[in-house]
């Protein structure tokens, strides 16, 4: 029996899994290669074409459609994955051919249900096949019991590689995904990030045979270079000059080195996945070549929904956003989109104050923002709730002060040089225009910005209805004169707009905006109604009680709300972030995917969710461990970690 189980998501589509093939158990992501004396990978060979010692391989490829071969009756006793027959070199023959290759594999399985058990079989996905067509076929394979697919890559980083990656995103979420072909080490982080579970290292051997030493990002033709690189690995260390090394020794050394390079990059990727920083590793690898960069950009653009679904909404530690590769990363793009969609400014805001971001996060802990806040207090005193503080930053766009603790705002780290490139400028301009459109035309916009930030406001100006006052006229925003001018302008406005001292709304604004951001527009006023009693220190912990019953609490360190049962009941009628549980009773601290057939597709790993039972009542609240669609599709795995449940 072959079983593939996903044990732990998520850092993007990347996942840790476990593949069980009768006696053999391997954790994934795993490498795959030809059998060797001590192979640290899944081994593969070809049915009845390899030496007998290879027949224990964990993946057996059946000969191609055209090959002369005998019937495959003997496969029953094998505990290997079986790669179904297809043909090489057909990708330029169009959709019809691609479809025929799938239909051949389907027919092959249907004719031999006994000798080739479908659970063991791997569909070879034809390069370039249309996604919709593929999905139609996959459901038929699924019905037969197939749970694995293989994809072909050539490391050219062109349209073929993109096609395979895109098709990978189209297979059922719980299938095993195998990448075959020529795969250079620098592709590994990307493939793992995209959720490939098994990766072919055949390239290690063919490169060695061509006297090519593989490195993390580049390849070295050891007999052709003027300067051979130093390598301290256990294989290379005894070699001074490959040119003077006997052929067998050279081959063995290069093979060993190349294999270890794959192992090294693989383990680095897995370690980064555990830290939630795999995306960062992928982005940093794109600097290997322009084509890597454009491949990632294309992936971000065209399979964003796939990447985003598996990208958690919570995280720990610093989130490095290192350059243009980060502008459209799922975390960043999702934040920008959600802000537009879910944030509504509190009605009592009459002044919008645009501020630059700070290198230190959260912003309000930074020196510059502490200065701003003193200047604001000096200017407007107890009426500061009428000001919508809005921070401009790259590549997230703009951040309302109320959301400064939300993930990833309190965590991201960017190179702060003050120079904005055209793309980040246009991202920020766009975000600013959309944000200001949510305020009334009478609101006054104060731009306390300089340098690149000022360019953004200037560029946005023609698309903004409100009038803009610049308060730092040419000076740095933190300078005494700028801060004084901010204070003066606020004093002026206070009297002109007849802003009276109002009650402190900071806690309410923050909690409501957070609720809206987390659960969608309108949830803020349900969880934190006007009658709510808010207690605690903002940015530490704030609890919200309505008639002595707690609905939720705001945790400053995560910038998120956690629900109580009462809170869950308040938002359940909106049917958002709801997981429908089939069981009668929740045992223990989790519910598992097997008990879920319906869940809000918007749910992401890390989200706060409401568990609703068959009788339509709230059974529990908790934190999701997978995406909504995964909960529905998976037969295994923890779906929700319960925080509170009905007694």
């Amino acid at each position, binding site marked *: 029996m072959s079983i593939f189980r996903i044990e732990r998501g998520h850092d993007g589509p990347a996942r840790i899994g476990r593949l069980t093939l009768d006696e053999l158990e391997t954790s994934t992501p795993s490498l795959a290669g030809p059998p060797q004396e001590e192979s640290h990978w899944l081994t593969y060979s*070809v049915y009845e074409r390899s030496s007998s010692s290879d027949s224990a391989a964990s993946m057996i490829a059946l000969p191609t459609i055209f090959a*002369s071969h005998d019937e495959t009756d003997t496969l029953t006793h094998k505990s290997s994955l079986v790669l179904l027959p297809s043909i*090489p070199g057909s990708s330029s023959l169009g959709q019809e051919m691609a479809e025929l290759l799938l239909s051949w594999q389907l027919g092959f399985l249907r004719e031999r249900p006994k000798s080739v058990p479908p659970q063991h079989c791997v569909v070879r996905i034809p390069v370039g096949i249309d996604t919709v067509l593929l999905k139609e076929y996959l459901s038929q394979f699924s019905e037969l019991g197939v749970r694995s697919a293989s994809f072909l890559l*050539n490391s050219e980083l062109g349209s073929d590689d993109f096609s395979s990656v895109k098709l990978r995103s189209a297979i059922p979420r719980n299938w095993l995904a195998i990448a*075959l072909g020529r795969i250079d080490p620098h592709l590994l982080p990307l493939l793992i990030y995209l959720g490939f579970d098994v990766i072919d290292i055949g390239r290690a051997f063919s490169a060695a045979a061509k006297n090519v030493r593989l490195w993390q990002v580049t390849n070295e033709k050891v007999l052709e270079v003027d300067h051979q690189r130093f390598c301290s690995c256990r294989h290379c260390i005894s070699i001074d000059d490959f040119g003077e090394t006997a052929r067998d020794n050279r081959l063995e050394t290069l093979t060993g080195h190349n294999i270890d390079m794959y192992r090294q990059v693989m383990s680095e990727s897995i370690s980064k996945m555990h830290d939630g920083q795999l995306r960062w590793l992928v982005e940093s690898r794109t600097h290997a070549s322009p084509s890597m960069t454009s491949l990632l950009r294309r992936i971000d653009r065209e399979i964003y929904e796939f990447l985003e679904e598996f990208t958690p909404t919570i995280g720990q530690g610093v989130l490095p956003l290192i350059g243009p590769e980060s502008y459209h990363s799922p975390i960043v793009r999702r934040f920008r989109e959600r802000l537009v969609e879910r944030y509504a400014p509190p009605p009592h805001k009459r002044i919008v104050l645009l501020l630059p971001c700070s290198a230190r996060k959260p912003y309000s802990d930074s020196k510059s923002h502490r200065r701003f806040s003193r200047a604001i207090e000096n200017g407007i005193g107890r009426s500061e709730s009428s000001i919508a503080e809005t921070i401009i930053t790259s590549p997230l766009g703009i951040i309302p002060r109320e959301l400064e603790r939300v993930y990833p705002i309190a965590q991201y780290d960017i190179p702060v040089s003050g120079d904005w490139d055209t793309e980040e400028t246009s991202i920020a301009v766009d975000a600013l225009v959309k944000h200001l459109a949510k305020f009334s035309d009478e609101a006054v916009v104060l731009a306390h910005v300089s340098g690149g930030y000022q360019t953004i406001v200037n560029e946005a100006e023609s698309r903004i209805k409100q009038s803009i006052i610049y308060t730092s006229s040419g000076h740095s925003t933190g300078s005494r004169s700028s801060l004084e001018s901010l204070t003066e302008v606020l004093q002026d406005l206070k009297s002109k707009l007849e802003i009276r001292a109002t009650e402190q709304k900071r806690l309410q604004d923050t909690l409501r905006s957070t609720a809206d951001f987390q659960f969608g527009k309108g949830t803020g006023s349900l969880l934190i109604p006007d009658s709510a009693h808010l207690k605690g220190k903002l940015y530490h912990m704030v609890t919200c009680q309505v008639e002595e019953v707690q609905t939720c609490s705001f945790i400053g360190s995560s910038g998120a709300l956690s629900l109580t049962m009462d809170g869950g009941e308040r938002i359940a009628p909106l049917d958002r972030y709801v997981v429908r549980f089939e069981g009668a009773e929740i045992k223990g601290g989790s519910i598992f995917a097997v008990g879920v057939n319906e869940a809000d597709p918007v749910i992401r790993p890390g989200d706060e969710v409401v568990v609703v039972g068959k009788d339509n009542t709230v059974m529990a609240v908790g934190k999701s461990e997978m995406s909504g669609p995964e909960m529905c599709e998976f037969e295994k795995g923890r779906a929700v970690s319960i925080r509170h449940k009905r007694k």
Partner: protein
Amino acid sequence: MEDTLERIQSVIISASTKARGSSIAFRRQRNPTRPAASWITTSRIGNSTGKALSVVFSTIGCSHARGESGGCTMCSYLLDGTSVPPSAAELVEQFAAAMSKLDDEEAPLSVKLYTSGSFLDSEEFPSEAMKSVLETIAQDPRITQVVVESRPDYVTESNVSLLRSILGYRHIEIGIGLESMNERVRMLCVNKGFSSDDFEQALLTAKQQNIGVRAYVLIKPPFMTERDAILDSVLTVRQSAALWASTVSVNPVNIQRHTLVEQLWTDGLYRPPWLWTVVEVLKRGHSEIPQETNLVCDPVAAGKARGAHNCGRCDQAVIRAIRDFSLDQDPKSLEGLDCECKTDWEHVLAHEDVSLYVHSDRHEGR
């Protein structure tokens, strides 16, 4: 499943037709009185060696390629043909021009009559011309061997008895592009358009007149892995020898213009066979066929990017060994060859089968 195969076949046929495209319209109009090519080589004639004159007649080309069926996936012989069909008299003139090259040669001689299609197809090569050419040969006692080429459809009783009656005692061989004994490979990968039965029938017909058949075996049609290619060719060599083919000639695919194979090659989806593959086919083939069957190979464009090739360093030595073996039929000629690229080839054999990734020159460099 059969239905799927048929549809795969029709996709390949239309791809092949498309690759040929309008190229046929640009065929040159050749001088109808000169052969497209003619040359003299040293060749195996019976059990000894002698000179062989090969004549490629300029004709309108192969009926299979001319017609709806799209032609074979690797063949652009049609392009070597001429757009205006030469008359019988002109064909005879072509032959006379070529024959003059044999003036100073001594027996035993062999004459190989090639067209860009079938010598026995009367539409391509009118019967009067055929008779006249054969009669000219019959008058030359130095010529002891005659080879013609034809698709099996034209290996009819009347044609073979004509050959026999005019050429008399001479050793006659008809070359037939069998390519592969595997029906799927021949029909789909090559788009050959005839069945194994057609081939066997032609073989029997020829045998009645004691005419031998020279089976052409294709090494590495498209859509096969390098190891598929070896296994298929070895099997075909063995089976065609068992069917009484007098000579088996293995032909590694070379990239000809305006063919499906060329298009695949350009896209990095096809690589001509390694010379190691050719050596392997010859070695294994030789050990599996009877002594009296000749196994020969004259690889076209060998050592070049468009022909069977290795790494570039060892190609010439390997080609020489292949040629030597073809002349002396001694497997020792194929021994002792080695090069670093052999390791790469061995890896390709194993890896292509598993991954179906084409280790083409475009991807892998050369």
